[in-house]
């Protein structure tokens, strides 16, 4: 996904002279071809995230569209005030490409797991938060970022994530994509969790339980109409977060439902990481299983919740 995102930066830069890349301390050779082709438009600034984001805001104030890229935790936590003020308050069109959203860097420990990034970034007024499901969706979303009027945070998966987006998708910032039509239960997911949602829905289908999947290519702005429609159609909404429960997609969905249907009778089952640091290591998938976020655990939890509802 990261490779695709950077390839797209290069492609967009060819198309649009406003595009520049700002990196902190990326892998050797990052965007070397772009640097050779358009000198001065690849800026490597060192491990100085406060300066990197502030400088990107200054570039944007002069009409450029900077794409800033580094590890998600450092792009959100270290320079949060720059994100809030230099990007959010000024509404500068800076795009933050965040490597390793969620549990991708779990082997490296809690300093590197970005499990509260959605919460803190969507708390910034005017900040769009995108979480593509796979590299192909990333490819379709990136051109939309060129002319989006405010700042954007883009949460990347690990790379090599299963492709669940469709070639005829026409994603739009702030619009949900229906992956499986709403059923008795409907899962709402974002990022790479949509692949797990689809696998869980498939399992439930084999048990005769009709489960829909709504994929959100981004958490902010929220597609209130899609959430409301699902709540009217389904007996149960389920939210999936590769993120702590506080402030993640589940919170965003509850807030959305509260805006459109404050008295909605549709219950929302939230599946997320505990509100704690992750002290475990291991792979992203190992930890998703550990925290009950893989397809078998999800299918079981949803079936159990539906049975409880039926017994009420």
């Amino acid at each position, binding site marked *: 996904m990261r490779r695709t995102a950077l390839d797209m930066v290069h492609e967009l830069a060819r198309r649009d002279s406003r595009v520049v890349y700002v990196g902190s301390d990326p892998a050797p050779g990052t965007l070397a071809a772009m640097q050779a082709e358009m000198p001065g438009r690849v800026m490597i600034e060192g491990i100085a995230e*406060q*300066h990197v984001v*502030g*400088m990107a805001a*200054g*570039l944007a104030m*002069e009409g450029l569209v900077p794409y800033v890229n580094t590890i998600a935790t450092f792009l959100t936590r270290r320079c949060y005030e720059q994100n809030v*003020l230099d990007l959010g*308050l000024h509404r500068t069109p800076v795009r933050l490409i965040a490597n390793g959203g969620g549990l991708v860097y779990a082997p490296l420990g809690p300093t590197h797991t970005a499990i509260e990034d959605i919460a803190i970034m969507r708390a910034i007024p005017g900040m769009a938060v995108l979480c593509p499901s796979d590299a192909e969706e990333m490819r379709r979303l990136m051109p939309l970022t060129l002319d989006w009027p405010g700042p954007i945070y883009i949460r990347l998966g690990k790379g090599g994530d299963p492709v669940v987006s469709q070639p005829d998708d026409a994603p739009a910032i702030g619009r949900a994509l229906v992956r499986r039509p709403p059923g008795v239960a409907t899962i709402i997911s974002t990022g790479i969790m949509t692949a797990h949602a689809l696998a869980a829905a498939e399992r439930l289908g084999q048990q005769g339980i009709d489960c829909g999947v709504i994929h959100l290519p981004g958490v902010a702005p929220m597609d209130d109409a899609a959430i409301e429609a699902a709540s009217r159609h389904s007996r149960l909404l389920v939210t999936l977060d590769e993120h702590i429960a506080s402030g993640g997609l589940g919170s965003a969905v509850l807030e959305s439902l509260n805006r459109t249907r404050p008295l909605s009778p549709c219950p929302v089952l939230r599946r997320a990481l505990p509100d704690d640091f992750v002290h475990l290591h291991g792979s992203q998938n190992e930890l998703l299983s550990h925290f009950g976020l893989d397809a078998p655990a999800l299918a079981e939890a949803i079936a159990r919740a539906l049975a409880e509802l039926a017994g009420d």
Partner: protein
Amino acid sequence: MTRPIPASPPLDARSLHLRALAMRGLLAADRGHVGSTLSLIEILRVLYDRIMRHDPAHPEWPDRDRFILSKGHGCLALYAILADHGYFPPADLDTFCRKDSPFGGHPPCHGIPGVEAATGALGHGLSLGIGRARALKLAGSTSRVFVVCGDGEINEGAIWEGAMSAGRTGLDNLWVLIDYNKVQSYGPTAEVLDLEPLADKWASFGFTVDEVDGHDCAALEQVLSRPPNIGRPSALICHTVKGRGLAEAEADPTAWHHKSRLGEAREVIEAAFAAAPPQGAP
């Protein structure tokens, strides 16, 4: 080492006028940063009167020089010089800190012609200025970027991240001016977090460094008029006096750093600048 700078010349009529204008906002709102505003006046006066390319009738003129007041709490001085140059009517200063006024206690990002950036959280302005300077160079523009930082402000690590970048990239269209009044909120900068050797620090980051009496308009103009050293950004350490022009504030600068209610200070300020002559831009 930072050089000792000789005593400032007496304030002339224009400097008194600009101080009275800045204090007009403070008196109207019954609050504001006193000392940090008064130390800035001559720096802004020389920049806007003599150095920067700007056009009050066209605040967004692409060929203008850019100005960022990184020490946003000195905004009354900025509002005063902008009003004096006709960016907006001086009477707007009477709305300082009012509910519906854009003239807040720190510069806002919208609503005031001539204000280039919202500042107030310290340590942001230099990197904003570096981004603008980089973009101007990419566009082949000859416009320059002037960033004014406070001395307490440069305690912030982000300033030094920016300084490393500006030096490395040789931004000779960038000027950083330090309002070195040597007093921050808690007390003397030398005691809170000593900045010395300040000139050596900026030089070691790749800047051409000058020092000047920040209340001596002729000296400021002389330094700021020199052509840039090609491939090097410029730092100008302006030795100033916190509260300059208000004897009580000069004598007790920590007490006059910020007033959230003027009380007896009102009469002191009114008396100090009552006789200031009305004088527009030269």
